[in-house]
């Protein structure tokens, strides 16, 4: 029995740590979804680009992946701005039969990025062998008579903490600064924001940059604990939009909760069903959200607030 509890608790811890990182991916996507009303299907591929930046910085200059957060994040911020300015914005103006043109465009961008990465870096699995990668803290170290044994991996916890720090910074930016408030206004009502003198077009560009920067941060935090290959983007795009739907389209608080739910759920499926089934579990949660909670976690939060 103790073994089972131990396994369950360990899975739960891993799930929460994973969920924190997932929340960062989901946040970027939810921001873009909220402001631009499109799903960015190149999101995972942007993360892949950031991970390659972190990888090369580590291999060539021995820069720790946690320090390359400060390099890859601005780099992807400007990359995202360029993408939005030169590719996505022009398409918004083009008249066409299909309303989903921008979404298809992001698929095209993702496709090019993934394929270029395969061409330049081959499809080998890469990782950054940091010295502390297998370091961990054990419960028995602190409490000798503990009935169960739990461990906390050092890189995982560090990644989680940095993810939380980035999330708090983002929250401060969105609630305290003018630019952040403008972004939130644009997400709520474009016309009203325009009337209030918000430069909606610039906000769109900035938002896409921030979304790309957030996912770049997540990429740098993932690389010490995960491995890297060119087509990994697809998987993380899937994760991103499952979180976005779970949290409620475009809601940032929802995305954080959605990320945690997905992380825990995925950790549970990996422990009790097997690693290969993780995408299926993700899809089930997605379907469950669509059937039972189409508004996502955000709709519950809204109801609760109204109830008060």
């Amino acid at each position, binding site marked *: 029995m103790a073994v089972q509890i131990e396994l369950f608790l360990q899975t739960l811890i891993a799930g929460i740590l994973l969920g924190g990182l997932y929340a960062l991916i989901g946040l970027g996507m939810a921001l873009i979804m909220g402001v631009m009303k499109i799903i960015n299907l190149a999101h995972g591929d942007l993360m892949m680009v950031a991970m390659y930046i972190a990888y090369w910085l580590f291999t060539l200059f021995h820069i720790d992946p946690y320090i390359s957060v400060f390099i890859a994040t601005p780099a992807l911020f400007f990359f995202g701005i360029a993408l939005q300015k030169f590719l996505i914005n022009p398409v918004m103006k083009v008249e066409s039969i299909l309303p989903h043109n921008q979404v298809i465009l992001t698929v095209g961008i993702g*496709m090019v990025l993934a394929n270029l990465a395969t061409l330049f870096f081959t499809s080998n699995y890469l990782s950054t062998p940091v010295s502390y990668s297998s370091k961990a803290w054990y419960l028995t170290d602190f409490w000798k008579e503990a009935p169960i044994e739990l461990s906390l991996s050092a890189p995982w916890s560090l990644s989680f903490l940095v993810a939380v720090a980035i999330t708090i910074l983002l929250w401060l930016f969105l609630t305290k600064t003018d630019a952040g408030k403008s972004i939130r206004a644009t997400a709520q009502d474009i016309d009203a924001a325009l009337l209030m003198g918000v430069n909606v077009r610039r906000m769109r560009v900035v938002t896409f940059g921030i979304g790309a920067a957030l996912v770049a941060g997540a990429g740098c935090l993932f690389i010490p604990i995960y491995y890297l290959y060119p087509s990994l983007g697809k998987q993380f795009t899937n994760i991103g939009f499952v979180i976005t739907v779970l949290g409620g389209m475009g809601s940032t608080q929802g995305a954080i909760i959605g990320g945690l739910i997905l992380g825990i759920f995925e950790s549970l499926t990996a422990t009790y069903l097997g690693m290969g089934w993780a995408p*299926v579990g993700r899809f089930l949660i997605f379907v469950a959200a669509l059937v039972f909670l189409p508004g996502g976690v955000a709709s519950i939060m809204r109801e609760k607030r109204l109830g008060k």
Partner: protein
Amino acid sequence: MKRFMPLIVFAVLLILPQIGLSTYTLHILILVIMWSVIGMAWNLLGGFCGQVSFGHAAFFGVGAYTAGLLYYHFGVSAWWGLPASVLVLTILSLIIGYICLRLRGAYFALATLALGEVLRVTAENLVKFTQGDLGIMIKQRTWVEKTWYYYIILLIAAGTFFLVKKVIESKFGYYFVAIREDQDAAESLGIDTTRYKTIALCLSGILTGIAGAFYMNYMGYIDPVVVFPLYDISIVTVMVVMVGGVANYWGPTIGALIMVFLAEIIRSMPKIGAAHQTLFGILLILIIIFLPNGIAGDYRKLFRLFRSKGASSSHLTKAS
């Protein structure tokens, strides 16, 4: 003339194998026709009804696996997969339709995108049922010659073309377009939007599934990576329609012709072959920016583009 166009094209395609084409050319033609079937199916749902699907590989793969599993488990001819896939895909489309067509927005696109991936993982993991990554192989193909395969897929394509045209010209077609243009307005006019979107999805799924079942019979081998890939099938399907022409009867056929030939040319080039996804992606981006309604939809714009270029160049020569 325009009315008889389909008949003329059909007659030409009917005679084509009799003039002594090489096996390779015939193979390419079969692929072109198969892709135009998938494209027409996608166009019915995405182009006319406005429900963009990023996961037609799911329907294609389920069709292919229906044929393959019938052969593998029951030993019957894989050709039974064609009628069987109609049944299987109706059920699958109804389920997907029930779950995500009630909602509007990007949900449907996302659900289809995830569906393809999930089916691939399922097919890889259910080793006992689907043979996993080993795939399913038909030990003895029905014909060695490709001519019969050509005629079968041609008949399927002709049937698809006819069906799509009839559906779009009927009451249903007007409902589909109304839903695409303005769902609220359509609903306020008394159209049960969920129901008609589901009908479009079913038709589209069935037609794609039939193409998949044909693929199983024709190629004789499938595995999860071949029939459920995101870029090589789902996105290529979108591209076939985008390049050819969205919401246009001939669009998918033109698109399939261009895409299959382009793919063959790119893949045959030694160094560039590996970069075919990059080139396809760039083509997709260019098409969306400059010809958002495809070659068939924007051919006037295309002409104008060339003419204005010609005019400006003549102007330049005059000035010089």
